[in-house]
């Protein structure tokens, strides 16, 4: 157990998001991992108006690759990085494969940022993918639960929904004790799902576009009570790729580089029950008075790792108040409950008021801090190794003012065998300047927070 003041680092030189590309995300894909990555890479390199002419010239600029795949169990392919790397003809440049559970994608970006900031590389290629369709959903849940403690917790359900649900029960109790009704909280949970499925309707890459009612979410199949199937994220197949570069290289490659000005990574014990009480780690806009009665933080209700990563990233980027300073956010809505918890850990609301972020409309398009306009993990995808990369791309595209380019063009919908919906509307946040992306593993064992800014 380490605290008290987190180490806030400094990038030795500025690092930029240059371009991103993705495949569509589905329950089952026709392509293999390396084929998906190649498709996503083509989009990143050939459809982002890069100032290099063609694949061969672009490839000359890249000197390192970072790959994200959460579980070798799923793809049944160890050293997946080697297969993807040589499929794209990157040899002999070096590469590494990153594995931090649900935060794999975010951690892959952390590694790329470190490689560029250190001066070791000028242009780094980042790719993530997860092949989750080789086994049944039940077996998939069992595999994912292998990311819980094998000795003491995996056998108790073999389901991460359950591990989150244990947190949900305590969160609901705590909120009830604070005077918030069960119905209010249920409505907040349902609204997260309704919102994210709804935004997925405007995302050609998304797996689960839908217009559900709050009642449909609340009455969907119970998985582990109170969490229902529509409170849970998707199991997806698909790939996401982005290009990270130094300032000089970024401006040579694109007219619209986006600065990655904050990078935070936090952790907590793998077993939720091992977490011992500690003082609340305060964000720049908070004070001790707000939490003077908190004796059991983080307990089962909060994610220390998220708070720690946010603290570091916000301090690096000079974020004074996340709700005011960011124009949009992509958070890790593995479950509706973890979305509410994360709103608090990220400081979008103070502890105990997470539900208000969604119920007030702040989290919606047109609100103060539109969140998961991609549809998030509930509406768009959770192809684990790709998830954190998808989030950074969605923020990057918004800040580059490219959201319409990648979402509104009927040709992109057609490419994925879909029809652009008749009631389509643009979710490009007008004049978006700053965004934040949060990648999250376990019940908060690893969390990364990246802040992005239009320079």
């Amino acid at each position, binding site marked *: *157990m380490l605290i008290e003041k987190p180490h806030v680092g400094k990038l030795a030189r500025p690092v930029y998001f240059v371009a991103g590309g993705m495949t569509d995300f589905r329950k089952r894909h*026709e*392509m293999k991992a390396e084929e998906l990555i190649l498709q996503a890479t083509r989009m990143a390199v050939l459809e982002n108006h890069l100032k290099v002419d063609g694949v061969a010239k672009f490839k000359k600029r890249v000197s390192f690759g970072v790959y994200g795949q959460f579980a070798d169990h799923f793809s*049944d392919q160890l050293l997946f990085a080697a297969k993807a790397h040589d499929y794209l003809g990157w040899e002999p440049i070096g590469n590494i494969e990153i594995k931090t559970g649900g935060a794999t994608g975010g951690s892959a970006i952390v590694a790329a940022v470190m490689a560029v900031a250190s001066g070791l590389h000028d242009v780094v290629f980042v790719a993530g993918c997860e092949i989750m369709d080789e086994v*049944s959903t*039940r*077996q998939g*849940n*069992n*595999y*994912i*639960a292998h990311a819980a*403690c*094998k*000795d*003491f*917790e995996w*056998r*108790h*359900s*073999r*389901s991460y*929904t*359950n591990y989150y*649900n*244990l*947190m*949900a*029960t*305590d969160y609901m*109790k705590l909120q009830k004790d604070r005077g918030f009704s069960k119905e209010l909280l249920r409505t907040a949970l349902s609204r997260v799902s309704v919102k994210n499925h709804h935004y997925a309707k405007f995302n050609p890459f998304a797996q689960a576009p839908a217009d559900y009612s709050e009642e449909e979410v609340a009455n969907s*199949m*119970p*998985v*582990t*009570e109170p969490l229902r199937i529509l409170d849970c994220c998707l199991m997806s197949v698909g790939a996401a790729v982005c290009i990270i570069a130094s300032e000089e290289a970024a401006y040579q490659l694109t007219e619209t580089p986006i600065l990655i000005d904050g990078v935070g990574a936090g952790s907590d014990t793998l*077993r*939720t*029950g*091992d*977490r*011992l009480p500690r003082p609340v780690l305060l964000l720049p806009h908070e004070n001790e008075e707000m939490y003077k009665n908190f004796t059991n933080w983080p307990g*089962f209700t909060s994610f220390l790792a998220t708070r720690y990563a946010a603290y570091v990233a916000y301090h690096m980027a000079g974020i004074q108040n996340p709700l005011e300073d960011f124009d949009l956010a992509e958070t890790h809505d593995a479950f509706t409950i973890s979305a509410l918890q994360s709103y608090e850990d990220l400081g979008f609301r103070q502890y105990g008021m997470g539900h208000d972020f969604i119920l007030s409309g702040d989290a919606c398009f047109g609100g103060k801090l539109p969140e998961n306009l991609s549809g998030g993990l509930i509406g768009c995808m959770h192809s684990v190794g790709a998830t954190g990369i998808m989030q950074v791309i969605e923020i990057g595209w918004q800040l580059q003012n490219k959201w319409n380019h990648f979402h509104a063009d009927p040709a992109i919908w057609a490419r994925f065998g879909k029809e652009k919906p008749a009631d389509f509307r643009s979710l490009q946040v007008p004049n978006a300047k700053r965004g934040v992306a949060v990648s999250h593993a376990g019940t908060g064992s690893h969390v990364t927070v990246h802040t992005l800014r239009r320079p």
Partner: protein
Amino acid sequence: MKKGVITTNPLRIRIPRTVEHVHNYGKISRYFRELAQHRVLATSCVNPKCLRPKTYLPPRADCPECWEPMEWKLVGSDGTKGKIATFSVVHYPGAGYEEDIKRVGSKLPSIIVYVEFPGADTKIMSRLENCDPKNVFIGMEVEARFWKNTAIRQRATHTCLDLYFVPA
């Protein structure tokens, strides 16, 4: 369609698999051996220089704070009372769970609990039996039970399933 072929385009084939792992409990082996004797052992840091000496259940052999080996400490046996810190009712578990709990005479839905055990600073995940899911609540008093009972031919599984709880 040929046996083992799921679809032809793309061609997707079945790869059956049965694997046995030999799992090593390492320095916490004693915990699982003692469970079979109806004893719950935690580990405690006794290093006087430790900045945060705690008692861990689930046990860890070495203190995460000072990295010194910890000492075993008996914290429970048949009927030891603990409190439910939080719970979850499982209807749809991961593959293999139902077969696994059948070995200890249990079935779905399962009530999975985190229990505050007297004397331990951390909480342990377990299963609550003999309780209607509607009646479980945070703060509920529960009693430790152990699966192994040679008189009625119950054999220890040497897994965390050997310990469970019932309403007190």
